[in-house]
Each structure stands twice: as C-alpha cells, then as structure tokens.
C-alpha cells in the first residue's frame, strides 16, 4: 500500500451539474502533486472531496487506506490525518493565534496541555510567528494568517496536506513567505501534498507531478518535467502559455 489518495471512477454532481467527471487519480505517499486549471474547472471540488467536505455520488475514493464513500467510514478519523489550507485562511475568529493551533489537538487528539503548548509554540516558531501567539487573527496580516493556518494544520500531525490556492488572496509581498513555509512542509519525505495554485514558478520548484483539469476532467497528468517541457494536451498548452506570460 503505497498510495495515499486514490480516485476510482469518481463522479461528483452539484444537483444537475456534473462537477467531477470520471476522475481516476492515484497519489503516492510522499508525493507533491500540483493541480492547475482554469477557474471553475473543479480544482477546489476535487481537493475538497479528499477530506469529505464535498461528497461524491459515484466511484471510490480511498484516502489513507479507507474508502471515503463507504458509509461505515468515520470521516472525522480520516480528517485527522488530512490537513487543509484554505484560500481565505479561515482562522478561528474567536480564538487567538496560539489557541487556533492548540484547539483541535486538545479536543480531537486529547493531547496533554503541556505537550500541546510546546508543540504549538514550536510550530509558530517554525512559521516565524511565535511573537504573534497572543494576537487575534484580525490583528495580523493575510500572509501571517495563512502561515498560522498552516501551523494549525500541522499541529494535527497530518500525513497529507491539501492546499487550495493558498496564496491567491494575498498581497504580492506576502506570497513568498507563505510559499517558503509550504515548500518546507512538502519537502518532508513522508508528507503527501496536493496543491492547487497558479504560482507556476513555485509549482516547478516543489512538484513531483502536475495535473491539469478543465471542465471537471483531468486532461493531463504528468511528471513535472514532462508537463512543463512538452505538455501533450492542447488546452494545457494554451493554459500554460497564458499563465506564464503574465
């Protein structure tokens, strides 16, 4: 068992709308996969099915050895192992930075208060924000909030991380600090990552593999080098030339 995430003929509908069309995709443990594609192509939907924030209507989706679509699967158990970083950070607005990091380990993992606090401070230190531990989320910048959000996810000791356009809502001067943190996270050999991003330079640095989606379908799934050197799909080529130009 070396795959962390496996989609088998997955179909997802929003009402009548066919949002994911027959997705087949296997992501191995330790891999870093970048998911790109035009807006509305289903990138968020795909990544959100992995931790069950969106349900699928057909097919199998196996995450860390368990089938998400199986009714007997405890989704909360899977979510412990799958961290998610959102475009708009979604830090808990009623908790300070330190509590944001400590809350889930306390109530979900029942981690001891002492260990939890030590871990939280170490993580905040890692993302360069130990001095903001007692600030409220509204008191720090977007880039800082996103780094706290990453620390919050890491506090659950996930085996897999999902990043959904983690820098799209940020001012340009904030982006690099966040990418640096993500790069560090993905570089850990036992971490599996799925990253939705429009940052092509960053994608080239961190990805093992690149997936191109359009209209709810996976149109190209290649190693990084092959994808950036000679993408075979027409639309992928067009998309790349557009996005790299500006």
């Amino acid at each position, binding site marked *: 068992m070396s795959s962390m995430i496996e989609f088998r003929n997955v179909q997802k509908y929003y009402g009548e709308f066919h949002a994911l069309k027959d997705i087949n995709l296997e992501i191995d443990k330790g891999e870093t996969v970048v998911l790109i594609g035009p807006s509305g192509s289903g990138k968020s939907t795909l990544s959100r099915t992995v*931790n069950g*924030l969106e349900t699928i209507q057909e097919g199998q989706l196996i995450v860390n050895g368990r089938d998400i679509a199986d009714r007997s699967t405890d989704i*909360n*158990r899977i*979510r*412990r192992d*799958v*961290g*998610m970083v*959102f475009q*708009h950070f*979604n*830090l*808990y*607005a*009623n*908790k300070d930075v330190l509590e944001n990091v400590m*809350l*889930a380990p306390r*109530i*979900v993992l029942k981690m001891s208060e002492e260990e939890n606090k030590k871990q939280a401070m170490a993580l905040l230190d890692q993302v360069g924000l130990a001095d903001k531990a007692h600030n409220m989320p509204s008191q720090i910048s977007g880039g800082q909030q996103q780094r706290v*959000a990453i620390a*919050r*996810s890491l506090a*659950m000791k996930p085996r897999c991380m999902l990043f959904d356009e983690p820098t799209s809502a940020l001012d340009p001067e904030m982006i690099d600090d966040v990418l640096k943190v993500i790069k560090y996270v993905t570089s850990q050999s036992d971490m599996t990552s799925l990253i939705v991003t429009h940052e092509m330079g960053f994608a080239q640095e961190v990805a093992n593999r690149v997936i191109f989606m359009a209209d709810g379908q996976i149109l190209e799934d290649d190693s990084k080098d092959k994808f950036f050197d000679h993408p075979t799909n027409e639309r992928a080529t067009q998309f790349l030339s557009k996005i790299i130009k500006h």
Partner: protein
Amino acid sequence: MIHLLTSNWSAFISGFGWTLLSSVLALFFSLIIGSLFAILEVVPNKALRIIGNVYVEIFRNIPLLVITMFFYLVIPLYIVKINGFAAGTVGLTIYTSAFIAETVRAGINSVDPGQMEAARSQGMTFWQAMRHIVLPQAFKYVLPPLGNQFVNLVKNSSVLAFVAGFDLMYQGNAIASQTFDTVNTYVIVGIFYLIITLPISYYMQHLEKKLA
C-alpha cells in the same frame, strides 16, 4: 401615589417577586431551549432540521395568551394539574424560545461557513465545531436582538395575570379595582416593570460594547 404604594406595599412586592421569578425562569429555559432548536434548524440531518423548523413556526405564530391558556386549561385535564404561575411561565418559556431560536439561527447563519469547514477539516465533530467555534461567534452577533427578546419576555410575563399567576399585573388589577385609583396603580406597576427591564437593556448595551 406614595400612600397607595405604602398601603399596598406587600401586594406590589409579592407581584414584583412573582414577575421577577417567572421572568428569570423563562429567560433561563427559553435561552437553552431556543438555542437547542436553533442548532436543530442547522444540523446536517434533514429530519432534525424539519423538527426544529416546525417547533419554531408553530410557537412563533400563535398568540402567547393562547399558548398560556392551553397549559392552564387543557394540560390539567389530561396530564398534570398545574397552577397559573407554572402554566404562565411554561407558556412564556415556550413562546419566547421560538423567537430566541430564530434569533440565534440568524446569528449562526451569519458566521462565515469557512469557520465550520476549517473546524470540520481538523476532525472536529459538528457539535464540537458548533460549541467551540460557531456558537461563540453567533452569540456575539445576536446580543442586541437577544436583549430585545429578554425585555419582551419580561413585559410578556404580564400574561400571568390572565391565569391567576399572582404577578405584578395581577396584583395591579386587584389593587386598581379595590382602590379605584387606576392611574396611580398602573403608573406604579409600570415603574416596577422598568426596574427589571431597564437594567437588562443597560447591561446588554454594556456587553455589546465590551465584546465589540
């Protein structure tokens, strides 16, 4: 007026006491029941949502007096004997809880859905996410309308007068009909109500400022 007050002092005070007691009990229980039904209205389970919705729509759209009379006259026939004070307080609790449910539900809906998603994505259950993340934010939003509900509740407690609940309004009616001094009697009754409602108004405003 002073004479009227002093010569009927014990009646006024006992009425005030029963009104206060009924209000405190109804406030406490309607807040709990109302919050529970508010949560029921937003749970993922559809059957529970419908139950929550039906409860709120029924009790919000029936006059308080009808609900109270139901408890005073109908329940004793089939279930248990209850006195006017209990019937009035139960009626008041249920009626107010429907409004509080609506208020709290609006507050829950005004919390960014990303908050619930973030909590769920970390493995928290729906209830854990509600308790630690969503409800604390929702209550901040709904403090002002909740304060209004509390003030309305105290005023509505005068419904006890209709079912012999010995509350302020009941005593006022009795004193007015004995002394024929209706003007002064109801002025005094009004002042006693203000003694309860004004501090609530004031305190809610204070809380609102503190949490803002």
